[in-house]
């Protein structure tokens, strides 16, 4: 760590320095100039952040207060919170919100449960452990587009492999794409397939940090493997589990690529009766099929607020539990 190279005192301070005493302004300015290389080095990130995250973020908020079409962007008309109140009365928004919720639950819950189980299995000493661990990450490394196109074909009505198999064992063909539950199930399967391995690896890493003597003590007390999993592993993983829940929830609210590509012909309506249109897809539909940028921006902000509320809720819950345990 030689960020401020020409100042030996700062360079030596590997540990965080004590809070700076409130000095006169002259001193502060000197400190700023002395640390200028530090600022220079972090600047690229913040400049890029400002250009590509902060500015679009604020501009989206500004756009969401206007009635504006892409063909006539200079003719934007200020409507205040009109887009938001229209959104709340829009049945398409509520339909998308419902779909996002059901697909989110259908995909996140089994995904995390399976990831936990897989991580537990991989934590044992197995032959070819590295192979399994790498294999688990493969779906995550596959592009969403490629995976979704393959799954969409598997779930095809007339020529899909899954229906062929169903028929072979005596069931009727299922029209996966046109049904509400069936299509949402199929999309959840894609999400589960893609993210289970990733979450399993995160759990595995956390499991390996659990001290072995906890398990030894549990064994001495006569705890079975299952009891060890329930009473040692799970409690120790709590912060990790919360982390994966938060990340998966954010991913679920933003779900977009899978439902967009699932139809196979690029339609943005999420099925002929919007049966699998998620909030992300609705936003795209409003913005880039209907070219109502104001509406789309309002939907984007609504998604952001939903994520904030849900994640805030988790944090509150976690803090309350932690306090209760103390």
């Amino acid at each position, binding site marked *: 760590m030689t960020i401020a*190279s*020409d100042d030996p005192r700062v360079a030596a301070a590997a540990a965080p320095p004590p809070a700076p005493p409130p000095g006169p302004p002259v001193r502060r300015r000197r400190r700023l100039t002395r640390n200028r*290389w530090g600022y220079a080095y972090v600047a690229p990130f913040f400049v890029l952040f400002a250009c590509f995250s902060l500015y679009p973020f604020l501009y989206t908020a500004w756009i969401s207060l206007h*009635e504006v079409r*892409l*063909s*006539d*962007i200079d003719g934007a008309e200020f409507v205040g919170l009109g887009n938001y109140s*229209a959104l709340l009365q*829009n*049945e*398409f928004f509520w339909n998308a919100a419902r779909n996002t919720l059901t697909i989110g639950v259908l995909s996140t819950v089994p995904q995390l449960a399976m990831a936990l189980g897989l991580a537990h299995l991989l934590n044992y000493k197995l032959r070819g452990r590295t192979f399994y661990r790498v294999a688990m990450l493969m779906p995550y490394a596959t592009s969403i587009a490629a995976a979704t196109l393959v799954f*969409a*074909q598997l779930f*095809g*009505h*007339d*020529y899909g492999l899954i229906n062929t198999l169903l028929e072979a064992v005596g069931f009727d063909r299922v*029209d996966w794409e*046109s049904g509400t539950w069936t299509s949402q199930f199929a999309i959840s399967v894609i999400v589960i397939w893609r993210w289970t391995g990733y979450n399993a690896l995160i759990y595995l890493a956390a499991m390996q940090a659990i001290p072995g003597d906890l398990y030894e003590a549990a064994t001495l007390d006569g705890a079975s493997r299952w009891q060890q999993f329930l009473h040692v592993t799970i409690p120790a993983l709590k912060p990790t589990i919360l982390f994966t829940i938060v990340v998966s929830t954010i991913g679920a609210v933003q779900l977009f690529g899978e439902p967009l590509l699932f*139809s*196979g*012909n*690029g*339609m943005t*309506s999420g099925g*002929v*009766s919007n049966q699998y249109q998620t909030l992300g897809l609705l936003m795209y539909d*409003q913005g*880039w*099929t*209907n*070219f*109502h940028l104001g509406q789309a921006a309002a939907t984007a902000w609504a998604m952001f607020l939903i994520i904030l509320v849900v994640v805030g809720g988790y944090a509150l819950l976690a803090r309350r539990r932690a306090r209760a345990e103390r």
Partner: protein
Amino acid sequence: MTVPPRRRVALGAALVATLMAAGCGGSGSDDGTITLDLGLFGTFGFEEAGLYDEYMELHPEIRIEEESVERSADYYRALQTRLAAGSGLADIQGIEIGFVADVAANHADAFVDFAARDNADEVLGHYYDWKVEGATTSDGRVVGLGTDAGPEAMCFRRDLFEQAGLPTDREQLAQLWSTWDGYLELGRQYDASPTKPEGSAFLDSPASVFSAAVYQGQTAYDDEDGNPIPESSDGVATAWQHASAAAGEGMTANLIQFGDEWNSAFANGAFATISCPAWMLGYITGQAGDEGEGVWDVAPLPGGAGNWGGSWLGVTESSEHQEEAIALVEWLTAPEQQVRMFTEEAHFPSSQQAAEDPAVATATSDYFSGAPVGQIFGESAAALRFTPIGPYDTQIQEAFTNALSTVAEGTSPDDAFQAALDEIDQVVGG
């Protein structure tokens, strides 16, 4: 390696400068050649037909570069963004029928007006009137020159018709399905036939009827001024009546057009008829493959002439080489080249002069059982009238065809129609 701080700044600045220079590269022409960019979508086919090479041979000082996006919807998004930003436009931009009304209404300023040029009579005179009207603004500007058109016919499978005991003679069929009622009646016969191949439907999707029939009305989706009138248009009402009957009676395979299953269905014989614009013949050939040769045939469209698709080429006002770009567009869309685009790429001309050329008018297709495609599509094109178009036609049509799919799944036609109107309100309304 220790680099003094000051030197590091210099290095950084040099790096940034290099990146910026690389990012903002212009079309430099050191050797006096002029590069013309074309921004297109789908398969215009000029390159495949060898027209660029020929033009560059005729004009050694010109270099032509084409950038093509596969889906016209994606292309339109990018084009709109560039028009809104006022930068990044190519010298020549393709314009499709789905968004030509938007370009004419909102972005006419960004394109060269072909009607205002000295040779306007010559370059516009050889077209079908409806083709020029499509690219004409309310104050008479013409934003582009037409390339191909999509006059429609009805494609059918001879083998499936034969098995179901239906006539296979295209002239007899043209009589039987001179109206959509006649067509649906044949569909009922097909469905009731005990000998038809199991699992095959009479038509691919209700969209096949709807998208073809809607343009046979006095109005389709819009009034004269381009304002959407989906509730009161006679074209919509008739098309909906026929298409929802086909969907409700289970006559269709209910496939989503251009989806994966639809693509596979061509080769698998899942449906016996599909309404086919001229460009669809190439699509069918590609999807059905060699095994489809001699199996498919073409007959005139029920209910009269119809058009689906077609494009224009516009020259942007921002082009640095406007005169050269205009010359290229005029050459590419001239009757002689449109004839070649038909004989080599099967793109039907939007130029009446080209369509009446013997090489087009007497053309037959071996793949489609020797059908006189030049004559069938030519008669359809000649009988077309201009139907007003609007900026939201693509979205409105998708709303209706989606709703028709739900009719095939059991929704009542009235509920589905209301659902389509709600969806359209999302597009058109505030």
